[in-house]
């Protein structure tokens, strides 16, 4: 029931600290949770992707994550430095459904926080929870090493409860992935992100 009550919590927070205050609060919570998840190391991408598939990584706390191993990210030398990952279901959807069947409908506070985040930080949120786990993933990526390299996470695309989509052209540009490819993934997935070795020299970079 905490998840349904969360909407009330957000409403109250907006009254006290404004939508921008809630965004800061969620980001701090993302930092805190990530800092408590501990460090992980993998010998290479194969072992990391198996761990993701088996739900053994810190990223797996969000739910079932699919490594899209046909969508590798390569550096200037053609070496694989990352992959795309996707979730079939946004982790907040069950809460939205539960709210629908208990309270009646989602609080407008949910949209208010997402809009604030989109306007000020990163135009990618389709609900207030995106604010938290965009930051959470960025932080836990720093605690995961693949072949000795820490990771960097780029949230690429999200699909909301009502079918609305957000695609981060900024992040797509950084990893040199075509928007059409990511848009096609949104037919089947609701959250798509990339994990890339930090400091990798990607194709297309100057």
């Amino acid at each position, binding site marked *: 029931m905490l998840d349904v009550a969360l909407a009330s919590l957000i409403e109250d927070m907006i009254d006290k600290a404004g939508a921008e205050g809630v965004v800061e609060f969620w980001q701090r919570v993302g930092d805190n949770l990530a800092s408590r998840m501990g460090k992980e190391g993998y010998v290479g991408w194969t072992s990391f992707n198996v761990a993701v598939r088996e739900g053994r990584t810190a990223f797996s706390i969000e739910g079932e994550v699919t490594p899209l191993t046909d969508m590798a990210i390569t550096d200037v030398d053609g070496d694989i430095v990352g992959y795309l990952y996707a979730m079939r279901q946004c982790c*907040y959807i069950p809460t939205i459904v539960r709210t629908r069947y208990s309270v009646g409908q989602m609080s407008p506070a949910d949209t208010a926080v997402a809009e604030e985040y989109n306007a000020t930080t990163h135009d990618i949120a389709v609900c207030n929870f995106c604010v938290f786990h965009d930051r959470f993933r960025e932080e836990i990526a720093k605690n995961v090493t693949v072949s000795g390299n820490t990771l960097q996470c780029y949230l690429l695309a999200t699909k909301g409860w009502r079918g609305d989509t957000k695609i981060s052209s900024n992040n797509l540009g950084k990893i040199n992935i075509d928007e059409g490819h990511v848009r096609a993934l949104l037919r089947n997935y609701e959250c798509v992100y990339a994990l890339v070795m930090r400091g990798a020299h990607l194709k297309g970079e100057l």
Partner: protein
Amino acid sequence: MADGRMPDSNPFVEVATHLFLEDLAAKVGVAGLNNYLVGLAKHLAVSMPEEEYADWPELLAALREGQSILATFEDVRPVTDRCMATARSPFERGWREYAKRVGAFSRVHREAAELYNAKVRRTAVTSLHIVLHTFRDAASARIRVGGKGIRTEPLATVWVDGERSFPPPEQLAPLLERAGISKTKLGMLLRNHAEVWILEPA
């Protein structure tokens, strides 16, 4: 959802909410968190539709089928006309995920419960019980049976790790009488239930 019951939440959202509350406690203290949780539970109950039932058996049937506001987050099993038992804590999945992925539950959740037990009534093991018990109180106030109000009272709480919380002995005996069960029966229920509580006309 096939049987009309609520779908499960994603425990990650609950883990995040726990962290949210911990961050809040760091800002406003344990007493502030306590007040916040009480307000949160009341607000949640008030945001849900009111209910009316012709008589007590109709209410009990709604509870069994998960159709009442009181059965929204709990799988309620009426033991007698007045004694209700909840099989699994609605917070169990979130707590298990927290323990598995994050580690030991933050001490602040126990501290909030201790404050609540000292100031309100001795039935909470963690902060989450403040939400559940306050929600039940506020939700029962939204139900009319035969045109009259009803109320709830916690009898015993067992947390996921087995820790129990009861009212003091001098308060427990009259509560058991109102519930229509013996102390032995209560002990039996607590083996495999998370909550035992009273539901009665106001």
